[in-house]
């Protein structure tokens, strides 16, 4: 199973940001997307996750095999750590909440409400959610924001374990993720030429 992207054009607010994006991500591999702010990293990830349509191009892998983790962690403030994870596990028909909490060092916090977690702890919970989706391809948008060094190492270990199980990870990040084996894709090379279609009106984009 692999994620093959061919000649993909994606747009934000009706304006094409990236065009001709092509890469292959096979099982067991990790790919890091790099590029300056606003170059379309998030847009590419959201397009691959099926949250927005691509203007052109193909993605070989159905959105059902992809787990997306965006800037927001999707946590409910008044639910506890364990309840938040158990909900996402139930939605995906999976178990393994305990193992996910253990892997992200959340076991001690399991009874605490998400609103009382620190930013880094919330992020760890958001990443633990990926482990209970049971999906092969992880799309991660700035996964290590607000994580300390120890937690980044924890995250790298979790991603490595996922790769070893035959999964794959596509990550957008500016900082070193502690994953030296990951390939790097520079998105600046795919920047779309600035162009506006005839009669373009942003209000109707």
């Amino acid at each position, binding site marked *: 199973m692999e994620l093959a992207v061919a000649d993909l054009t994606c747009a934000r607010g009706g304006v094409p940001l990236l065009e001709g994006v092509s890469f292959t991500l096979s099982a067991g591999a990790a790919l890091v997307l790099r590029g300056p702010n606003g170059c379309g990293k998030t847009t590419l990830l959201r397009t691959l996750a099926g949250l927005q349509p691509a203007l052109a191009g193909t993605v070989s892998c159905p959105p059902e095999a992809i787990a997306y983790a965006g800037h927001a962690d999707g946590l409910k403030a*008044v639910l506890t750590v364990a309840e938040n994870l158990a*909900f996402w596990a139930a939605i*995906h028909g999976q178990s393994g909440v305990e193992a996910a909490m253990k892997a992200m060092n959340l076991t001690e916090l399991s009874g605490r409400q998400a609103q009382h977690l620190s930013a880094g702890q919330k992020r760890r919970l958001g990443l633990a959610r990926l482990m209970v989706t049971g999906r092969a391809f992880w799309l991660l948008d700035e996964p290590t924001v607000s994580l300390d060094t120890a937690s980044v190492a924890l995250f790298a270990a979790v991603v490595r374990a996922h790769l070893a199980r035959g999964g794959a990870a596509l990550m957008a990040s500016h900082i070193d993720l502690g994953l030296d084996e990951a390939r790097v894709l520079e998105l600046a090379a795919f920047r779309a030429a600035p162009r506006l279609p005839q009669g373009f009106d942003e209000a109707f984009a």
Partner: protein
Amino acid sequence: MIALLTRDLRLAFRAGGGFGLGLGFFLILAVLVPLGVGPEPRTLGLIAPGILWVGALLACLLSLDRIFALDFEDGSLDLLATAPIPLEGVVAVKALAHWLTTGLPLVLVAPLLGVLLNLAPGAYGWLVLSLLLGTPALSVIGAFGAALTVGLKRGGLLLSLLVLPLYIPTLVYGAEVVIRGAAGLGVTTPLLLLAGITAGSAALLPFAAALALRVNLR
């Protein structure tokens, strides 16, 4: 699906979940009307069916924007849209959760408020039945409105403007059932129309709402 329903119910009952807001509004409205209109029992009895139905409708409206806005803000909606359950199912389940936490309590408390408004004795059964048949439509139509306005900052007012006109048929037939029931007339026709509106909205609007959500998530 069950997990989503239990999560939404749990969220509604925890602190800040908004359970009881609509109920409290309904209570206050029913207490304020006799104060404003005067204690004349005959006048109150005349306007009671309409007031109770308008009150239920406005109470429902209060909590509509919570259906999707909270999930949109914390990113859960993105994750639900990529989850294995269909988005149409998500809409239907969230509308059901809204009805269980807002509509159903209104149905249960309405007879008590009928006493405050001097509702005719024969109308209590019809009041409960009409609300039971009509309030699910309020939740489903409201979920559709909430899906349309989900990405907008402070879209609550726009949501009310969009949804209230869509509530008119439910209000007309719902109040008609109670009025005719109070007068001892046959209620079959408005009751059937009310049930038809609910069945139709529950069958069609989840699809429209899911489509609106997909567009708003882009």
